[in-house]
């Protein structure tokens, strides 16, 4: 019996029992029909057997734990102890059947193990595998998932914008349901310690997104056939969370204005500008954009944004140096 641990020749035969060509630093697996590059998990030449549903360079249906391909021609699966070559339709059918068996808990096949290996969260999908659609390809799933992720993030971003402009009004709109729900969310805000309802809702949304399982993302994306792309799936979940965290972080980059002051001129006339005493109002105005640099006041930036004051609609004008936190101009022009 040849042991790879003692035989240098045997040591060259690794994955799928295929020889790894290490000469010249290539490090490719030399299959019968073509070569496999483990560094990129792709074949180095096109598939001699055309599969329209996959890239001609993708290997093992992107699932090397479940599928084998010792010849480089077509994926094969060990099915109940037998190595069989299956068509795409047969593979999808088998996956669906495996899902059903996995759901019932009586078939510990590599499919489930692969999911568990990729991410513990992915295993939650097994609980909802009734959604499996054998006709959905990995590419369609990818597009669907991308659209779903961005749609979710964009919706949340849009909601965050409206929250910061009109927090309480938007709060009631979002929690569009029973009066009890609105009251419950409002009470949560009051007891949250947040002084800014907009930031409260933004934090809450971000927390909810971070805690979403892959299954939750699948629902958000309308993705119905995760079976073939579980590895990609896990990647997209992380991408979605990264994108949302970037938006959240950038949104949270409103300058810190705590402890702001005013020029003497403004301070002398506070009686006519009570909104100057509202950090919330100032923060809301600054959050609308970076402001236009002022030609005269050193480091000053100017914001002009619609708003309401004392029940009247109009325009807020704010001039502030956010570095020194000095307000040099602040007024509300009524329409």
């Amino acid at each position, binding site marked *: 019996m040849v042991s790879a641990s003692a035989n240098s020749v045997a040591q060259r035969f690794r994955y799928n029992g295929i020889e790894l060509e290490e000469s010249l630093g290539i490090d490719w697996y030399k299959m019968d029909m073509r070569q496999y590059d483990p560094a990129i998990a792709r074949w180095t030449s096109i598939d001699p057997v055309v599969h329209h549903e996959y890239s001609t360079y993708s290997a093992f249906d992107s699932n090397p734990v479940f599928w084998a391909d010792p010849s480089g021609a077509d994926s094969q699966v060990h099915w109940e102890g037998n190595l069989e070559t299956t068509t795409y339709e047969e593979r999808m059918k088998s996956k669906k059947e495996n899902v059903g068996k996995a759901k019932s808990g009586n078939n510990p096949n590599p499919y489930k193990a692969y999911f568990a290996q990729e991410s513990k969260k992915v295993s939650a999908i097994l609980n909802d595998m009734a959604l499996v659609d054998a006709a959905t390809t990995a590419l369609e799933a990818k597009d669907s998932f991308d659209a779903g992720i961005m749609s979710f993030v964009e919706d949340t971003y849009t909601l965050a914008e409206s929250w910061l402009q009109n927090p309480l009004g938007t709060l009631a709109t979002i929690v569009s349901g029973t009066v009890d729900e609105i009251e419950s969310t409002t009470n949560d805000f009051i007891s949250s310690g947040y002084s800014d309802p907009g930031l409260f809702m933004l934090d809450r949304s971000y927390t909810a997104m971070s805690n979403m399982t892959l299954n939750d993302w699948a629902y958000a994306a309308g993705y119905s056939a995760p079976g073939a792309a579980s590895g990609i799936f896990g990647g997209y979940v992380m991408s979605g969370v990264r994108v949302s965290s970037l938006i959240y972080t950038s949104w949270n980059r409103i300058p810190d204005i705590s402890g702001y002051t005013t020029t003497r001129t403004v301070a002398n006339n506070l009686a*006519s500008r009570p909104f100057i005493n509202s950090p919330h109002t100032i923060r809301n105005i600054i959050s609308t954009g970076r402001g236009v640099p002022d*030609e*005269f*006041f050193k480091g000053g930036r100017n914001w002009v944004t619609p708003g309401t*004051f004392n029940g009247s609609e109009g325009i807020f*004008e704010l001039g502030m140096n956010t570095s020194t936190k000095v307000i040099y101009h602040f*007024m509300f*022009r009524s329409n």
Partner: protein
Amino acid sequence: MKFKIDHNNRIEDRTLEYLPNECSFNMFPIVENIDFELILNKISLSVRNNRIIQLWGFCGLGDRMISNYTTPKYEKGDLIIEETLENGFAYSINDNELPVFININTGWVCIGNPIDNPEENTAVEFIKNCVAIINSKGKLISLWLKPERLPKMLKVNIR
């Protein structure tokens, strides 16, 4: 927005100063009890009983504004707003930003049109060293302000 002038020889006795580090006009003593404000560019004109009684606000001054324009003849009196406006708010006089001109020789700053002064226009010094010009239709043409001193940074305009 419509104004009228009452040349009654009355004038608000306040002091107008320009604070260069704040780029702002400031006036003292301060009147806090006002009805509403009128806004010219970023300058606030405080109104009580429809009379403009003080002004203050942000107004950047720079070299490019230096000119030789001079004030028209004026008399003391009241500048009165002829509009019914709700108390507690600020209302714009102008839709677009008005130009600013500085005569460093006379010390006057003009906000608005310094040369539109036909005979039918009327000028009034409604606050000490503050002159307003209105046309025959009551429209504010220009506001002339003379602070205690102009910023030292303004260069002498030699022509």
